[in-house]
């Protein structure tokens, strides 16, 4: 008897599992996957976001980490999961649009149901404060005078830091006159920028303020409030699609999520982003909030996937 019961129980749960009852969603905790290690920027942003998201959806939500391969391991694993809305990944521009175009990963632009975007920060090109380069024109002049002398760093090939510098120097037409020195992560690269081994680095404002660095241009549609004197990339003569670059991130579910569940998750995400608690969190941690709903985010994501192809080609990846 017992054996039959157990068998019946297992059979039921197996049969019942694929049917997602959208009305009852969520019936169990939602897993927000950070594709990087615990304690990193993405992870902490998600940990700040999770309680407000849980409150908004009227259920439970927790953050788990699956690190490795510049975020591609988590995305590759999530891509193969059942789209039930209980597993969401927080992916950045690089994980979702750059890596699938340079690596043979099992996911691409059609593998996802985008839910919402949460944050987006424009990147900046900067140099150490004691270098003589005040403007982009100074850099062009110096690079042309002594090709191969100036060095720019990155946190690794294909990383956002790499694409920022490539966008800047390819846009200025001097990419082949500078040397590229990749590091393992931003930490060692920033150290070498401080020490003078590399002269240029590109990242978001929050990272730039970690050192005594001078911004040369910002890859935004307009000048930043905090740096009114720093020109936009467009102003320095860099043309589209290399002139704007945002480190954005948002929630993705595997493709084929039921529209009702997507709508519920989207609404919860909007409410969480707008919540006072998360706004406070963003203010202290320097996160630039940029909310987009599911439809708008999907259009943005597809457009980014396309346009970043040009950047990848310029970087020679």
């Amino acid at each position, binding site marked *: 008897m017992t054996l039959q019961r157990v068998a019946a129980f297992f059979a039921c749960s197996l049969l019942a599992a694929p049917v997602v009852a959208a009305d009852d969603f969520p019936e169990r905790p939602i897993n927000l996957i950070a594709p990087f*290690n615990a304690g990193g920027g993405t992870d902490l942003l998600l940990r700040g976001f999770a309680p407000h998201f849980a409150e908004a959806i009227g259920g439970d939500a927790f953050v788990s980490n699956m*690190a490795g391969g510049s975020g591609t391991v988590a995305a590759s694993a999530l891509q193969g999961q059942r789209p039930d809305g209980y597993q969401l990944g927080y992916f950045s521009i690089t994980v979702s649009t750059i890596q699938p175009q340079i690596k043979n990963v099992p996911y691409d632009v059609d593998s996802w149901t985008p839910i919402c975007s949460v944050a987006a920060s424009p990147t900046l090109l900067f140099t150490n404060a004691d270098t003589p380069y005040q403007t982009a024109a100074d850099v062009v002049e110096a690079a042309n005078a002594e090709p191969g002398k100036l060095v720019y760093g990155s946190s690794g090939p294909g990383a956002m830091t790499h694409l920022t510098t490539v966008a800047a120097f390819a846009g200025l037409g001097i990419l082949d006159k500078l040397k590229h020195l990749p590091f393992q992560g931003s930490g060692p690269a*920033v150290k070498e920028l401080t020490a003078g081994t590399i002269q240029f680095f590109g990242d978001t404002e929050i990272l730039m303020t970690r050192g005594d660095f001078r911004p040369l241009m910002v890859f935004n549609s307009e000048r930043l409030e905090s740096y009114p004197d720093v020109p936009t990339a467009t102003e320095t003569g860099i043309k589209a699609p290399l002139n704007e670059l945002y480190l954005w991130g948002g929630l993705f579910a595997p493709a084929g999520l039921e529209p009702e569940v997507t709508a519920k998750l989207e609404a919860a995400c909007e409410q969480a982003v707008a919540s006072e608690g998360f706004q406070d969190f963003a203010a202290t941690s320097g996160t630039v909030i940029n909310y987009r709903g599911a439809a708008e985010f999907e259009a943005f994501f597809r457009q980014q996937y396309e346009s970043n192809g040009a950047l990848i080609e310029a970087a020679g990846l």
Partner: protein
Amino acid sequence: MLSSLPDAFAILMTLEGLLVLVLGTALGIVLGAMPGIGSTVAVAMVLPFTLSMGQAPAIMLLLAVYAGSVYGGSIAAILINTPGTPQSAATCLDGYPMAQRGEAGLALGWATVASVIGGLVSAVVLIFAAPQLAAFALQFGPIETFTLILLGMTCIVSVSTGSLVKGLLAGMIGIFLSTVGGDPIVGEMRFTFNNWQLFAGFNLLAVVIGVFALSEVLMRASAQLSTASELVDFKGVTLPRLAMWKGRRRTLGKSVLIGNMIGVLPGTGAATAAFISYAEGRRSSPNGDKFGTGEPDGIIASEAANNAVTGGALVPTMALGIPGDAITAVMLATLTLHGITPGPKLVEDNPTLIAAIFAGFFVINLLLLPLGLVLSRVAAPILRVKEAFMMTAIVLLCAVGVYFVRGNPFDLAVMGAAGVAGFILRRQGFPMAPLVIGMVLGPTLEITLRQGLILTDGSFWAFFYGHPIALALGLISVFALIFPLLRQFMSMQRRSL
């Protein structure tokens, strides 16, 4: 900053401050002592709690758990030969043989005292010389780091117990394993055979735990099963008497110095320090020839250095805003979350907070001694279980520990395979410590070599021209490589006479 020390102690000496320090350190020791659970997992476990704490307690908790787990790691390494982290791998080399001789308590005693002294000195250095040391760290560019890593690699020779050829071979296997995955300079995939799980490479901890802990379980299953009701004869830490320190103080001093210096350099880490210090101890200690057979100097060299690294790693973190290792990176991110921007002005802008962190670090290291003594007494009965219960628990804990390193079940399969491979190799007398050295240092060796070649436009000899530190380290590496061979040769000559 020194003037803020009184205020800083006022922060620490509150009930919350003390509670965080004591409980955090104790928790760290307990977690670190569990086979398979290392600092990474321990820190990940307490991280969610820090989000709702104040600035100082949050950082203090992370530090306490981290320092506690580094010390705790030596307990598992000495008692059951299963280091949970690469930095305790060097401690096994002499700690476990001592435990097998029935001196487990004393071996842990040496480890405890060495750890505490290493940690305390590094805390003092941190408080008084952080800016100077940070300036020193900036002297270490890719080329200097390359020569330092080269020096670290020569340690393979010193830790190759048994056969030198097999040790070198194990080292090569370790370096090779670290090259699997994305190329660090151009990003192309190597040896991944289109398996996306391999794009991220083999995880260091999965391999380390496999070849040490899991293979240890298999080794014991292959031997005659122990019929004793107690697995290890351990009744708690026995502190070494003062007279026993005779002739060991120099090793201790050198090891602390090595740990501090290497800790200050971002991206080199505790395992490098422990191994370089072990190799140096073996070369210069009067008991050098007994290394590997249960010689206290070996434990001192490894433990003093790996604990001194903790303080050293805080130097670039606090003075430059550049994380020294994965754990200090978590601390920086936590600071950012609390609205503090890490960077060169961190100390200037938040003198009291930073002083509190430094002072807290000093207190944590002081706490290691009493907590280590008390906890080991409490834990001793747990260790008095039958082999079967212990071995099974080790495998279960290793699975948990390895899973939480990256949250990837694939790493568990890697651990299983590494366990089997480690078992096969250990049966043939291959030492496993060189494999760990290779895997720890391999990636840095490759990236700094290639970065250096980019900077010098492809000329290897230009590494030593105009880079005095690199030249010095390069010469020391050559010397370190030749010296053991020379000594072996001389002893052979003497024997033949």
